[in-house]
């Protein structure tokens, strides 16, 4: 299979503008004859569904939560990047583009990233017009702050709840379309299969999570905005319901899965407190603006942090990366923290933690300023740990947070299956091997508000509207398969709960395919995953019926998919014999322990094609061609 990313010709800065003007259009009267399914209502899904509704398409919006407003984008804290250069600090589209592509360790597509940087400014304008309450200066103009991986202040924010406010903006736009009857909501509904007819995506099969009813939805195009898969690690900063099922089911129907091993481990999370831990909580990266990261220079130092004199503290990020200091990119900050903990310098229970200290910032700026900037985060920290970060430093440790990998898409955000689109975290396209802070919100909204609404018309103009109905055998077959699979999960009647399997898989992935990976460890993991999968289908226990609300059954289905998907992550990590961004192979590092890329052999997107159960997937390579950027070893020193 030849992977054509359909990157338009011409100089990088003009590609999108020129291309946009040549996309095929659907006339306003014809738009209402096309039906589009959007799965997921996070920033990407809600903004896409609302924008498509405004254009006049019939949109079916599906989410597993009880309301579209609860998608996990809501938990993003820190901010959203845009190249407005309001601070006169030398920012530009060019610089945002370069920072993003460098932050991604040169493993993303130039043209996509450039377009993202170009669109960034329009996103801010759109959100302001919707009434998103961004932070303001006393002049009434928009305020900015700085974030990891950048030396300019380009991040717009709404206290520590930027994701919430942007999502509510998109959700409100979506509710307006529901009122206008262009969008139909399907909350508490989970997509469990994709329907492909003659190679084109023509619909999905869903389970109503309240009644248990499995039913087919037909459409002219399907948009997956179903988010990322960090919960493959069980403990992550993602919501409990986050899962890979929608994109993985699409993969099993022929869509390519790209770069699954590119996962992001976020440096500033609250360390786990015990075996009962069900998820991890992120402390926004913005805290690194004013907090200093350190460990005692003496391993196993049990003194209270204020009693450790400055000379006996190792501010390891400032020491190793003097020009970026505490604002080094996430992958680098995470690995550095893991390294000092592995060497025995870690603090707190089990030595799994480093300090994030605000004492100096509080002395310099005063408590009220710190409270205004991070009040809700400090409160959240105290609630979880019982410690007051105004008095004692926070303890933080890295945790799985974001998936750069996702379904392979071309420049139009369309997968290799015509009519199937993937947007936001569900696709792979813009962040390469590591995502910079405040870029996920930017990408989700760029895809949903400003890219998909243009590119989807180009495809729809080539298909006859409502050409298939759910009576088609492909729908009845898929519906039956989903029903049988659900029934099978219930009828195993073994001994172990879905959660127990999920935990075991997560621990295995964290140990062998987490912040550092090795050939030996990955092979061990692969062997264990297939055993664990076999045990799952023999020993799973789900109590209750399939024809009603059954949360254990929902989880069982998601864990079943993770048990297959985890294998793909490990295979991808094993094949990529280099280190780049969040993918760190111990065999490939520089003498000072930094990631060592291999551009001559691995400057490509790895897109995997499903070949059947028990068969190894086929690898397809999309070479990454850089027209403008010079590939260099990332340096934040």
């Amino acid at each position, binding site marked *: 299979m030849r992977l054509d990313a359909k990157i338009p010709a011409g100089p990088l800065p003009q590609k999108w503008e020129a291309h946009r003007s040549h996309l095929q259009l659907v006339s306003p009267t014809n738009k209402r004859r096309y039906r589009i399914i959007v799965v997921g209502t996070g920033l990407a899904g809600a*903004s896409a569904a609302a*924008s498509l509704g*405004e254009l006049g398409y019939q949109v079916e919006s599906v989410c597993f*939560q*009880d*309301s579209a*407003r*609860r998608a*996990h984008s*809501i*938990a993003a804290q820190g901010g959203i990047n845009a190249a407005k250069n309001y601070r006169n600090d030398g920012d530009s589209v060019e610089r945002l583009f370069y920072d993003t592509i460098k932050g991604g360790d040169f493993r993303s597509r130039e043209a996509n990233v450039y377009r993202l940087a170009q669109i960034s400014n329009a996103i801010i*304008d*759109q959100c*302001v*017009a*919707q*009434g998103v*309450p*961004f*932070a*303001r200066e*006393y*002049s*009434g*103009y*928009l305020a900015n702050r700085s974030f990891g991986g950048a030396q300019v202040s380009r991040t717009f924010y*709404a*206290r520590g*709840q930027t994701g919430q*406010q942007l999502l*509510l903006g998109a*959700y*409100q*736009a979506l*509710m*307006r379309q*529901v*009122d206008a009857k262009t969008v139909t909501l399907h909350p508490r509904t989970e997509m469990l299969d994709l329907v492909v007819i003659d190679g084109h995506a023509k619909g999905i099969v869903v389970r109503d999570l*309240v009644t248990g009813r499995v039913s087919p939805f037909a459409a002219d195009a399907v948009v997956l905005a179903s988010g990322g898969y960090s919960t493959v690690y069980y403990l992550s900063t993602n*919501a409990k*319901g986050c899962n890979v099922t929608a994109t993985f089911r699409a993969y099993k129907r022929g869509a390519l899965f790209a770069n699954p091993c590119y996962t992001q481990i976020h440096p500033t999370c609250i360390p786990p*407190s*015990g075996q*009962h831990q*069900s*998820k991890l909580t992120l402390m926004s990266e913005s805290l690194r603006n004013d907090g200093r990261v350190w460990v005692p220079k003496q391993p196993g130092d049990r003194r209270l942090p204020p009693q450790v004199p400055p000379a006996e503290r190792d501010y390891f990020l400032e020491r190793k990366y003097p020009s970026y200091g505490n604002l080094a990119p996430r992958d680098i900050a995470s690995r550095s923290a893991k390294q000092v903990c592995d060497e025995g310098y870690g603090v707190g229970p089990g030595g799994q933690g480093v300090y994030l200290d605000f004492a100096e910032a509080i002395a310099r700026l005063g408590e009220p300023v710190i409270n205004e900037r991070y009040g809700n985060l400090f409160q959240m920290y105290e*609630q*979880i740990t*019982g410690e007051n970060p105004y008095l004692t430093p926070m303890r933080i440790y890295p945790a799985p947070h974001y998936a750069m990998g996702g379904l392979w898409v071309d420049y139009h955000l369309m997968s290799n299956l015509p009519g199937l689109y993937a947007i936001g975290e569900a696709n792979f396209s813009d962040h390469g091997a590591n995502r910079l802070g405040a870029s996920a919100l930017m990408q989700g909204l760029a895809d949903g*508000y*400003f890219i998909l609404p243009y590119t989807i018309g180009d495809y729809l103009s080539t298909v006859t509207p409502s050409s298939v109905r759910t009576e088609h055998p492909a729908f009845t077959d898929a519906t039956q398969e989903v029903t049988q699979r659900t029934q099978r999960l219930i009828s195993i009647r073994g*001994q172990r*709960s879905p*959660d*127990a399997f999920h935990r075991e898989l997560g621990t295995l992935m964290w140990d062998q395919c987490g912040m550092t990976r090795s050939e030996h460890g990955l092979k061990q993991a692969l062997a264990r995953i297939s055993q664990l999968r076999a045990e799952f289908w023999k020993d799973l226990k789900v*109590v*209750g019926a399939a024809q*009603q*609300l059954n949360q*254990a059954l929902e989880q069982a289905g998601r864990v079943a998919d993770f048990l297959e998907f985890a294998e793909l992550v490990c295979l991808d990590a094993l094949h990529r014999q280099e280190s780049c961004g969040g993918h760190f192979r111990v065999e490939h590092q520089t003498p000072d322990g930094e990631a060592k890329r291999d551009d001559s052999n691995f400057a490509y997107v790895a897109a995997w094609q499903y070949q059947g159960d028990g068969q190894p997937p086929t690898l397809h390579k999309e070479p990454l061609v850089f027209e403008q950027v010079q590939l260099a070893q990332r340096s934040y020193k």
Partner: protein
Amino acid sequence: MRLTLKIWRQAQDNPKGTFERYDVDDVSPDMSFLEMLDILNERLMHEGKEPIAFDHDCREGICGMCSLMINGQAHGPDRGVATCQLHMRRFKDGETIVIEPWRAKAFPVIKDLVVDRSAFDRIIQAGGYVSVSTGGVPEGNTIPVPKPAAEQAMDAAACIGCGACVAACPNASAMLFVAAKVSHLATLPQGQVEKDQRVLRMVEAMDQEGFGNCTNHYECMAACPKQIHVKFITLMNREYLKASIKQP
């Protein structure tokens, strides 16, 4: 810690439910409240009993999905937090904890502790937005917003739509929820054009859903995990009055 739990169990499609008693031990004070329920559910499943259905998702207090009445208090005894942020160190060894769903006519129980809050979505559909379509908007800084207005709008917009205000109110009123959205948008220049129509439509939608009236108990503010202030109800009433007078 050892605890006795009295939890509301209600089968799906059955209008009646009952309290069941569960004894749990080995509860760590560092556990979150929902982790304690996870452990109970694991045990129930192991015993072949149906686990307790409860809503939850982000488990960091922002998605608004979790919704438990704990010892008669929406989201439990701590101020300014959602159930998912409540930790067991807040309780005493040997304590009995009563756990119920949100109770309100407009929030019917689906099963056990899970209720249907879609009424909130329908209220937002009745105008809880600025009618701006994607594209064709002015440059962000051409709409300056005085800092105090931005702060007030953010205070109101912080609402997570969990429904604790309704559950805590003796009248099951949704005034705080509706007021938060009305005030968020009425405070900003972007929300001015539609503000009369917005408040009238949203209040009408609220009434249609069967929520009760506000009689100034302020239980909503005490229960609100985001500590949304009742002053926004005053602001909404003022907006409503002004809009009603202007109506032809």
